[in-house]
Structure formats: C-alpha cells, structure tokens
C-alpha cells in the first residue's frame, strides 16, 4: 500500500484507500459480510464472513453438522504437536508380531521415515511411518483394533519442544 505515501494527509487518505480495498473485497466476497473493520493507525482492513449461512444458525439446527466443511478441517494444535494417521482402513498393530516389543513407546523419539506401526488390511501388513521427526506423546489407538482411514494413531511433539 505504498499509495498512502503519495498524500499530504496520510491517515485520512490511508483510510480512504483502506476502505476502497475493503469495498473491493466486500464485493468479491464468497458470502455476505458479518463484520468489517478498518483502521488507519498501522493500517488494517479486516472483513469477516460467517463460515456459511448454516454454520451461523443456532446450535438447535442440525444443519450445523450438515454444513460443516466437507474436507476435514483439523487445525494443527497450538502446541505444535502433530498426528500420525492411518493411511488406510484396517487393523492397527503396535508391534511387528504378537508378543514382540512395540515399534515405538510414549516418550520415544522417532526419525522421519521410521516405522511406528502396522495397519493390516486383507492379510496385507502395511507399514505406518512417521513423515517427520518427533517425540511420541500419545498412542491414540489400542493395539489390535480397527481403524478408519485418517484416524489418529499417534500424537507427536516436535523434537525441539521435546528438548528439556
């Protein structure tokens, strides 16, 4: 927004510019606005829309669930932890074979690409690997139980967070 420099009255003109931007945005909006904020100190344009009309409905309305975004919207937890999810439908195994020690335990560090579990489907043993390094803070599924695609198997903390 270098334009603001081109005026003798930066603030007012800045506001003018901000509002013009805001109006633009409002017109090209995906849905009706819920709120608009325009600030000149530190220059800010903030438009807010309801995620969608239904989501804005009172909880009583089952449409809330109905209208939840189709794609999973699992926001990453603030503490930087991340999940390892099931790559397919199947049975979750923590160990390479019955009685054998599990691939990983809580508190253990894992490297990217390290196998952490097996998901068995139709007699096929599918290895589950960590896609990045981290420390296991939770094993989310009991050994030997059925898991759906995308189900959380482990929660890991980033290595740095794991450092004392």
């Amino acid at each position, binding site marked *: 927004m270098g334009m603001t420099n081109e005026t003798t009255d930066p603030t007012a003109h800045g506001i003018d510019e901000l509002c013009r931007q805001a109006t633009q945005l409002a017109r090209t909006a995906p849905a009706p606005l819920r709120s608009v904020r325009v600030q000149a100190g530190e220059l800010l344009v903030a438009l807010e829309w309801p995620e969608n009309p*239904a989501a804005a409905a009172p909880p009583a309305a089952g449409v809330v669930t*109905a209208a939840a975004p189709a794609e999973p919207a699992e926001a990453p937890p603030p503490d930087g932890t991340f999940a390892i999810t099931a790559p397919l439908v199947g049975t979750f195994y923590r160990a390479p074979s019955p009685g054998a020690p599990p691939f990983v335990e809580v508190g253990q560090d894992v490297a990217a690409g390290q196998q952490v579990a097996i998901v068995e489907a*139709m007699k096929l043993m599918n290895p589950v690997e960590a896609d990045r390094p981290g420390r296991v803070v939770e094993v989310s599924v009991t050994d030997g139980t059925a898991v759906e695609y995308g189900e959380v198997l482990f929660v890991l903390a980033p290595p740095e967070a794991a450092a004392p």
Partner: protein
Amino acid sequence: MFSTVLIANRGEIALRVARTCREMGIRTIAVCSDSDRDSAVARYADKCVRIGPSAARLSYLNPAAIVTAALQNGAEAVHPGYGFLSEDPDFAEICEANGLTFIGPPAALLRRLGDKAQAREIARAAGLPVLPGSSRSLASLEEAREVAALIGYPVIIKATAGGGGRGMTVVRDPREFGRSWARLRAVAQATFNDPRLYLEKFLENARHVEVQVLGDGAGDVIHLGERDCSVQRRRQKLVEETPAPGLPGELAERIRAAAVYAAREVNYAGAGTYEFLVGDDGDFVFMEVNCRIQVEHPVTEQVTGIDLVREQLRVAAGYGLSVTQEDVRPRGVAIEVRVNAEDPERGFLPTPGVLDEFLPPSGPFVRVDTHGFPGFRVTADYDPLLAKVTVWAPDRRQAIERVDRALAEFRVAGRGVHTTRDFLRRVVAHPVFRAAKHTTGLVDEMAVEDAERLRPAG
C-alpha cells in the same frame, strides 16, 4: 435376511439403498471419502466408515478398503449401487472370497456381460437382433478398418470394457477412422484399464428403450416393463419414462420378450437392464446389458409398486423374488428427470458450491431421490447428479404437466451453483417430446434451435 449390509457407494443411490435396508430391519454401514464425511448417507446409516481421500480411485473404487470396512463391521453383504465397482467382476470375486455376499449377478456373469463385445455375441447367439458389426474385440486398426468398410459408415467404435454411454465414439468419415480409433483406444486404456475396442453400425436418430428384468438365479426371470431413455446429452440420460411412449404396435411387447429370453439364457440373478435401440423403421436391436440397479429405476418402481432394491436383497439372500410375472401390473405413467449441478448456459459445466437453499418439490404423486440438503456442499469430485424427481400420473399428458409443476417448485440456491432444472423444463415442454416423437437426437436439435433463435433475423 442379512442383518448388516455395507453400501459401497455415495450420493442419492447410497441413501436410496439405506432406506430400503432400514425398512427391512437391516443394519447399514456406509462408507465415505474425505469429501463425503458429512453426506446425507453418512448421517443416515447406522455407521459410516471413512475409507479414503476424495479421489474415487482411492476410496469408492478401492476394493481393499471397502471389503476391510465390511469385515470390520460385521457386514454379511455389500450393495454396490451403480457406477464405481457395481459391475466389476474382480470386486465381486474379492467380496465372495472374503465371505461377503455381493448384491448383484455372480462374478462370472459380470465378466461375460461386462465384455460388451462378448455380451453382443451372447445376445446374437440367443437370437436377438444386433446391429451389423464385429463379432468380437478387434485386434488391429487394419482389421477394424476392414470391418468398418464392410458394414458401412457411419460406424460407432465402442470400448469392450465400456458401457453406460461411456467409451464410445461415432465415425462418419472413413478418413477420420484412424484418429478416432487411436484416441478411443487411449481413453479405454485410461478409463477401464482395457484398450480393447469393437465396432458397430451407428444408428442415427434412434430411441433408447431398455427393459428392467429381475432374475432369481434359479432360472426364473421376469420383466418389469420397459423404459424410454431417449432424452440424452452425450449419451448421458436426462429424462426417463415408462411405459415407452409411441412405440408402434406390439413392438414393446416383442422387446420385453427378447430381454426376458436373453436373461433366461444366462440365468440372470438380481436386477438387470437390457438396453435396445429402436430405429425409425420401427425395428429394434440389442445394445448392452447393465448388471446393476439403474439410476432411472424409480420410474419402474412407481408404476409397478415393486421396490427393486428389496428384490435385489431378497435374491442375494436366497429368498427369491417376492413377485411373479403375473403380479407385475404396471399402472399409469412415470417420468424421471435428473437435476444436475451443472450450468446448461456454459456447456453443462459442473458447478460446485454450498447449497444455501434447497427445497425439493413434494405433494401428490411426486417422489424425490436426493442426497442434497440445505448447507450441503456440492463437490467437483464426483458426478453432478443432485436429485432425481419422479412423478406418476394416470396418463402421459398429466405426467408431463406434473413433472413440470414439480420442477418449477424446486428451489436450489448457492453461490456459483447452477442446475439443469430450467433446461429440463424446456425439454418436457418441447413439442417433439410432448408428441413422443423424440429420439436420442433431441437435445442436439434443441441446441440447433437455440442457435437459430440467436442468429440475427434476415
């Protein structure tokens, strides 16, 4: 009867199957991809299992995921719906190998009739009229060229593994043949993982007439009358009705008899559809068999009162059919229109988006099969069918007025979302359709009429 059935499909048909299961006291397991996690059937079924990402190849076309979900949840049978794996013999075999009943014809029959060139031969051998063409898949372009020259242009090249209007191309000019052959071969390889092709004479301006059959797998086959599905765009059906209107004399009866005879020959099991073309000479030829429930099955249900999914379940569970041919007494006329989330103004471009408003028609003699609801998100991942509106009336004139009334009531609104509603209203208002003189060429003719209307006068 089964106590638990897994429904290996999505959209309106998954919901349709779940409804009959509910009425029969059968527990339902739905499956969903990432983009269908909040779908109508996901909410409706007793349980919904997430089986993969949005890409159908990794979810609804993934036999391992579906069979595993079925086994993990105690399903005894799998209903495949239409499309996806519904006519895949390998999937049927995997189900059976894992102790799951595949609700449809046995794998071996799916294989024989799924090979469209072979299916054509089986029909011909059974004495059904077929168009001049190749008696099998053709090995080489040269051979194909010879056959084409022999039967004469225009010809239609079809993928052996195709069907349902997919994997076929018409060639009118011999000089085009080579290119068309190569292109379709590539498409067939990509779409069906099977490059084989065969040839037939192409019939211009024909009517699409199909016969609904039910077989108990023990040799008994009955028909539930025929459907006319001539209103098509690029071989995709838009409007279907039963009985077929304006067929000369006993033709409909002969077509029904031919279908039943052919189905008996292969000892058909479950619900199937024999598709025919009727030329303006008033003669008919066999086209293909669809070994599944059809999208347009509701029109047959509304005139016969028979729940086709219920019959599928009965046959699969070994209970046989609940009706005999004598019990089948079609009454009145039923018309179905397919309301798609497409924009006819932009070449029927699919229009994904969230439905802010969704008010389907209702009232006397109107049936709606839909997975839509207010707040539903139409995604671009799957076919654009949004709702099937089916009406019944004592006669065709009233049925046409009723379907137009129903379409006019249908309110769909969402940013960016368009539907074929108004286009369908134009179809059922078209004098050629009202006179029942339409063929598969109607939609193209309408496009020409539009072009002429737009052209400046003089």
